[in-house]
């Protein structure tokens, strides 16, 4: 296909064509991401269809691997991911703070909530509620909590003793960040933590492992599970049900930025714009089953429909200096200490 066949999307600045041409000349884009290949695949295919000639090399890594690899490669200077896209918001912001991000104002910025763009470097791309999942076969309606405040009541049920699972904050960075968000939004956080610990909560490092336990009945309820996974699993697995707590629901967003060390900076810009565009977000909502962050995207898994369900309960995790608040060693270890004491 001739290069000139691709025109700049409508409403983009006039000189956008230059980025497209340069991106095509680069011909390649390296993405480091935590979103699994299966979910990302429709996005990659559509992006390559939109910009034929740019081949996406998609690296599906877990958030720690991603961070490790990025800082190692950045230091070695041999080239690294052009775009990193990760659900570990704190690690992403840390990389930006450490000066690894390229400043680039996406033409889509205006369509995003203000908090989803930080210094034109880090962009929030999804709007994923943190949910509670439960086993539909084995739990009755009144055995399921409606809100965080309701949790203590439900946990008093001896049936749930040792049958609730959640992230281990000490071993899972994302799990840790959801708990610290709870701490911010919930006056009675430590009471809730106590109730959880006293119910013999079992702690894991991954959503998938927890979902497996809830599905099989080894556990009955999972606390702080990423909503997009719960949604996806519940479609395939008749045992899984999920809910968004009605008092408040923490919302996380996968953060992406362009690396300052990018070898294909133009292709990277095209990708960032594409992911934030209506076209990309529509796929994020419909095919990737992540939740779209743009208000002009409709559908079950979008900020739109979610805002209706959550009313005023949504509490997006901010992107900015406060995201890395708990990377401070002392603060972090203090939290762990209190979390451990909650068991007593």
């Amino acid at each position, binding site marked *: 296909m001739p290069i000139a066949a691709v025109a700049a999307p409508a409403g983009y600045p006039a000189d956008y064509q230059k980025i497209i041409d340069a991106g095509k000349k680069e011909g390649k884009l390296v993405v480091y991401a935590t979103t699994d*290949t299966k979910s990302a695949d429709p996005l990659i295919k559509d992006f390559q269809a939109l910009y034929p000639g740019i081949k996406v090399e998609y690296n599906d890594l877990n958030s720690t691997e991603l961070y*490790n690899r990025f800082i190692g490669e950045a*230091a070695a200077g041999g080239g690294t991911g052009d775009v990193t896209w990760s659900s570990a918001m704190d690690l992403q912001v840390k990389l930006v703070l450490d000066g690894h991000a390229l400043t680039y104002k996406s033409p889509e910025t205006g369509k995003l909530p203000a908090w989803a763009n930080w210094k034109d470097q880090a962009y929030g791309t999804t709007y994923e509620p943190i949910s509670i999942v439960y086993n539909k*076969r084995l739990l009755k309606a009144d055995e399921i909590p409606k809100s965080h405040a309701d949790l203590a009541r439900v946990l008093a049920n001896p049936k749930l003793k040792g049958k609730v699972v959640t992230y281990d904050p000490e071993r899972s960075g994302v799990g*840790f960040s959801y708990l610290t968000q709870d701490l911010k939004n919930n006056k009675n956080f430590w009471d809730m933590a106590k109730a959880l610990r006293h119910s013999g909560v079992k702690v894991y490092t991954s959503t*998938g492992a927890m979902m497996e336990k809830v*599905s*099989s009945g080894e556990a009955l309820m999972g606390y702080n599970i990423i909503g997009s996974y719960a949604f996806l699993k519940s479609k395939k*697995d008749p045992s899984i049900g999920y809910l968004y707590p009605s008092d408040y629901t923490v919302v996380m967003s996968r953060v992406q930025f362009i690396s300052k060390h990018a070898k294909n900076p133009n292709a990277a810009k095209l990708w960032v714009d594409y992911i934030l565009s209506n076209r990309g977000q529509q796929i994020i909502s419909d095919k990737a089953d992540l939740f779209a962050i743009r208000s002009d995207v409709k559908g079950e898994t979008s900020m739109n429909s979610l805002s209706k369900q959550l009313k005023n309960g949504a509490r997006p995790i901010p992107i900015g200096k406060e995201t890395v608040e708990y990377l401070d060693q002392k603060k972090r*270890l203090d939290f762990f200490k209190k979390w451990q004491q909650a068991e007593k």
Partner: protein
Amino acid sequence: MNEMPLSKKVVICLTAIAVFLPIGLLFWQSFLDAPFFNVDKKVGLDAYRFIFDDPDFRQAFLNSFYISLGMAFISVPLGGLLAFLLVRTDLPGRNWIEPLLLIPVFVSPMILCFGYTVSVGPVGFVSIWAQKLLGSVPWNIYSMTSIVLIAGLSHVPHVYLYSSSALRSLASDVEEAARVAGAGPLRVAATVSLPMVMPAMLYSGVLVFFLGFQVFGLALVLGDPEGHLVLATYLYKLTNKLGTPSYHLMAAVAMCIVTITVPMVLSQRFLLRNAQKYVTLKGKGARQRTLPLGGWRWVAAGLVALWLAVTVLIPLVGVIFRAFVTNWGEGVTFLEAFTLDNFKAVFEQGNLMRGVINTVLLGVIGGGVSVICFTLIGLASHRKNNGWTRLLDYTVMTPRAVPGLLAGLAFLWVFLFFPPLAPFRKTLISLWLAYSVVWLAYGMRLVSTSLLQVGAELEEGARVTGATPGQVNRHVTVPLIKYGLLASWLMIFMIFEREYSTGVYLLGPGTEVIGSLMVSLWGAGAIDIISALSFINILLVSVGMGIALRYGVKLHD
């Protein structure tokens, strides 16, 4: 023939570099307070101070110690007994039991433990069945006791291998004497046979003990729910404890593991030397007669069957079952949950499919190249004893002391920051080098066993007629050990298929292998895919074992 040719020195030097460069990096990193590639790093003991102050480290250390101890106490007596039963007695079904016995050696503990959670976990099918029968499930697979027990049971084959080959080299006349004097089979085993192979058992005991400190996959899967940490999983936890990966702390833990295991690895050398001394005890000729077990026959068979069921059958059935269902648990029947989607997902996803192909390539081609390298190294020190070969001896032993996970991390650094190697980082070559170094001791043992079988007079004969050392190797030694090398290739293939921890940090597009994909996917919790990959991995290993059995390759020396 006192002067060593330059080529041999080069081989020895290269081996030493491949081993000591990554380990040296780990050592250096442990004395810094930031990643070694950071500009603002400082040298000091902060990393050690931090981990020694950390109650989690103490707990992990203790757990590792218990596991090691438990493993030694469980696997040494059982392994010895099993060797006695299979080598010396008329146990029914001896011939087909042996290959089954070795399954835990060639199937990764990650897969086995994953299988345990499905079959004997709190809602596993065996557990549900026990619940119906007994009213409650009498075990908890996630407890420390279970972890120690499973670690112990799955290392029985390691002890078996050493004890049985020692037993085979002993004549049975002493045992017969004991029998004639009226001793029962158990008494013969306990007071005659096993004491004779005590050095071999002690050697394998030490081996199992330090393998205990490197336990990773088992604790990763079974230690997760109740948070039982061991040293290797503590490394993982360290990453998040401070929010950002802390290489200096990880390196410090690695050095602690190495400090514990190096003396043990070295003591093995000493024990081995003693073990060989013992072999002179063997009777005239190698006449061996099987000992009739009499009434004990079926008791013994039952015990072996029980061990096989617990260690091999239960986990394998669990994995295979999970690979073919969407969900499972109380009230879910196999038929309604049956699916092939898990495999479809593997075939549809580029990285997973590449992982399967890479695993085969690494095992077949990589394994072959490794055997060639091991042979070159073996020839370099063949029938020599000088400073160079002693250096080589220690070089070969050292990687055993380093857990694969960390060796992989160190190799990542080497490939990142050592410019000549940098272009190979994203290729299978990086993995191949890491695997070959991690399994150096094992491979060298395979190759040198073959080399030692070549009579010195054959080589001397060639040399007397004027052959150069190179010609001797090419025309005499190597052709003579050809079949031994082919068998080694097969063994290395199976070990490379099984390996799961070494590739974790080297994982990337182009370097995916089943083992490291499983560890990574475990972190992401993609259980469906892990189970399908496990099944494929078991198939690959089975092919290896099938070939071995078909062509009569001995699965051990």
